[in-house]
């Protein structure tokens, strides 16, 4: 049940009606059942896996809280993390590891191959689950008493399959002290859902056609012009696709009285790669910072250790996206850039002032991010090399982006700069009804004119 389908909106309408028409004590159960139904609509077989992980981490949380500080408490934590990483590793990385092992041993690459189907959203819900157990271990989060509450935390349908990765404290704050959404929340929620849907269908899916065309047959599109336009198309696709999904998730949560953190903050306006990661998939980057980078020592153990930690964090962040050398290199590339920036900047704080230099820095950051996307999107390493070679050498070739694609990028850029400076989204949500309705009408009109309506292109991050 994709977010960009009529079925999903029917489902959402039913959930909203049932949720608000029911007595308060039943509402958690309704959300839980709806979430399992939503997950089961993809593949019922994975519900037992979700239940197992939920049971393990719920028990681990309770056990850790009861256990005094010491090796035993740590042992329970390790057990829980091992279970999560074990499931994640098996489903996501088994074939990748055994493929490379077979290569090392000189055996046929399929020697240890298993026909494994990746459970939907496993990367997201295991990270969410692990953060909860670690927070309980660190004493930053009380263990949840009610298993229903915990199960809902793991499987809440708006963010179950592709995030944002919500911290336990944020979720339980809203769940345990639930208030009906305010008028502003409802206004923002509806606007976010429609805005996200438009980002996905009118922007991401249009750029997807260009990117898929290019990466589907790189050799058929020679020249640096083709390569850059194909890569930029993918850069646009992934941003609008993922941030569109996230906007919808946050909007739906708001309609149900939950407040999820912002996951994207106009990343292509970033003035450096460090700034980029403060704006891109914020829930993952902050998760990696809090549970990996800081655990590795962060920047507390000297310059070289900081660089090492950045590199390891981003390598693992890359690997989190998928089991392939491409994702590892993508992570390493960003880790390397972060380390270089750190070396150049030293301990000076990041400046986000808009000076005359800012546009230049933003363009440079954008181009660096685009180069990174080559590894993310290419089917394999040889194709990544082929694309990079095309981007930096050879004839000009043909621009794959049509003028109206460029007009869409221009429109998005204007809206992003306006949001950065004027915070228009919030203003519109709080504006008088006529202004608010006009904004909704414009969003819908954009969806009507540019939305890829019948193709139902899946969200990119659903595969992770």
């Amino acid at each position: 049940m994709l977010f960009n389908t009529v079925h999903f909106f029917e489902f959402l309408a039913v959930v909203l009606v049932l949720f608000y028409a029911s007595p308060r004590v039943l509402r958690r159960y309704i959300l839980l059942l709806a979430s399992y139904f939503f997950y089961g609509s993809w593949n019922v077989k994975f519900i037992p896996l979700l239940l197992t992980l939920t049971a393990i981490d719920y028990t681990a949380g309770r056990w850790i809280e009861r256990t005094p500080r010491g090796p035993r408490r740590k042992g329970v934590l390790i057990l829980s993390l091992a279970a999560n990483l074990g499931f994640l590793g098996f489903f996501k990385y088994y074939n990748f590891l055994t493929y490379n092992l077979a290569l090392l041993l000189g055996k046929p690459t399929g020697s240890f191959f298993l026909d494994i189907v990746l459970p939907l959203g496993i990367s997201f819900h295991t990270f969410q689950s692990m953060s909860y157990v670690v927070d309980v271990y660190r004493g930053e989060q009380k263990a949840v008493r009610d298993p229903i509450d915990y199960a809902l935390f793991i499987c809440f349908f708006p963010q179950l399959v592709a995030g944002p990765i919500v911290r336990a404290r944020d979720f339980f704050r809203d769940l345990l002290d639930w208030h009906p959404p305010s008028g502003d929340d409802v206004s923002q929620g509806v606007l976010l859902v429609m805005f996200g849907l438009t980002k996905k269908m009118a922007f991401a899916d249009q750029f997807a056609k260009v990117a898929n065309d290019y990466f589907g047959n790189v050799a058929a599109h020679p020249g640096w012009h083709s390569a850059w336009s194909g890569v930029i198309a993918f850069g646009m696709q992934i941003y609008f696709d993922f941030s569109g999904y996230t906007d919808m998730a946050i909007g739906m949560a708001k309609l149900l009285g939950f407040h999820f953190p912002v996951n994207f903050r106009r990343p292509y306006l970033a003035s450096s790669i460090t700034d980029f990661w403060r704006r891109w998939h914020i829930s993952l980057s902050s998760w990696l910072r809090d549970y990996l980078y800081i655990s590795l020592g962060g920047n507390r153990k000297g310059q070289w250790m900081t660089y090492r930690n950045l590199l390891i964090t981003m390598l693992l962040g890359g690997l989190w996206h998928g089991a392939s050398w491409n994702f590892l290199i993508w992570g390493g590339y960003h880790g390397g850039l972060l380390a270089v920036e750190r070396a150049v900047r030293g301990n000076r704080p990041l400046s986000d002032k808009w000076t005359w230099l800012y546009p230049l820095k933003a363009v440079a950051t954008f181009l660096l991010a685009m180069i990174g996307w080559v590894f993310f999107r290419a089917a394999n390493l040889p194709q990544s090399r082929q694309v990079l070679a095309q981007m930096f050498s050879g004839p000009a070739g043909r621009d794959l982006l049509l003028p109206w694609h460029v007009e869409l990028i221009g429109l998005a850029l204007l809206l992003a700069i306006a949001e950065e400076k004027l915070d228009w989204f919030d203003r519109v949500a709080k504006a008088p009804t006529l202004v608010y309705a006009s904004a909704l009408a414009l969003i819908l009109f954009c969806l009507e004119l540019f939305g890829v309506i019948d193709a139902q292109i899946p969200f990119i991050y659903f595969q992770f």
Partner: protein
Amino acid sequence: MDSGPKRRYGRRLVLACLAACAGLIALDSVLFRTGFYATILEPDSSTGLCELILRREMSAQERYGDRLVATFGNSRFAWSPREIDRRPGPHKYEFRNAGVAGSDVRAWYYMIRDLDPTARRYKALVFGVDDYADEDRYYNPNDDIRALHYVIARLRLSDVPEFARSFDSRELQIAAFRGGLLKGIIFQNDLQAFLAHPIKRLSYVSLCNRSWPMWVYNYEETPNSMAGLQIDWNTLKVTFPPGVNQDQRDTVNNFLAHEPEPQIGRVAAFQRTWYGRILDRYRGSPTKIIFLRLARGPVPRPDNLTHKLSSSIRELASRPNVMLLDEHVFESLERPELFRDGMHLNREGIRRFSYMLEDEITRVLDGTGGGVN
């Protein structure tokens, strides 16, 4: 929060959503229902072609007054106004071809409604049909989504529910309802193509507005023929003449040499509905409605191959002002050497058909024979 503010917020949201929907329809209407966008449509698209034809025919109405005879049909109803003009002697009526390749009577209904809002602008409307009896073929005419694209610029908001219901499949009903209500969905590709090269589009539109009627007027069909084509109707085995291409073979196989389909009355219902609606518009009008049976093919399919259950055209001809040409009148054209493939006349076929068409229609309109009322 007490119930007062909650109710206020709820009211605001409902109001905002309703206003947003109204705003969306208003924006869509400003762009696509004012007639502006129809003037810059890609002339080579189905909708663009339909609009070009309508513009051409509307301007012809001013020039020719009450002498106009308009023909409606698909690509099989091909005749040449130039051939008629070349004939010596006075021409009592001005024949205009308002047909569109691939279209059907559902599309013609909406075209005619805008072309002749008073139902008095034409001396006669002539419809070319494959057969006076109703034969169901492999496709369902109700579910031909091309109709939506031909008439999208002509659909009014009040047409939408009825037009959508005219499709059988639920999926197409939804597509037609959605597209009829929000035309931007149907014009999406055209608009994106326009935004890609606006100057090029505007120049091409301007060129077509100036020259397209002459291009069509001067167009000459290919002289290629199917001479030598034979069909054994017992075995449906076709003997093609040497040198025919795949398209020519396909038209013969699909249009002529096919097994009969089960006769379930689909075509009859479709024709009764849409011709019926056209005839209803012309009830009490001086405009004559004339049906003619087109030449059936290079080798006509024997009537006894399919047991046809009804004849909606003959039923409709019992209404006042409706005429049928003798169904055998164009049989002399049913020869392989006058067809370019299995269903379309070639250059010589069109020339002969054009003359015959003028003669027969003139005769019927003048009441000097030929017509069956």
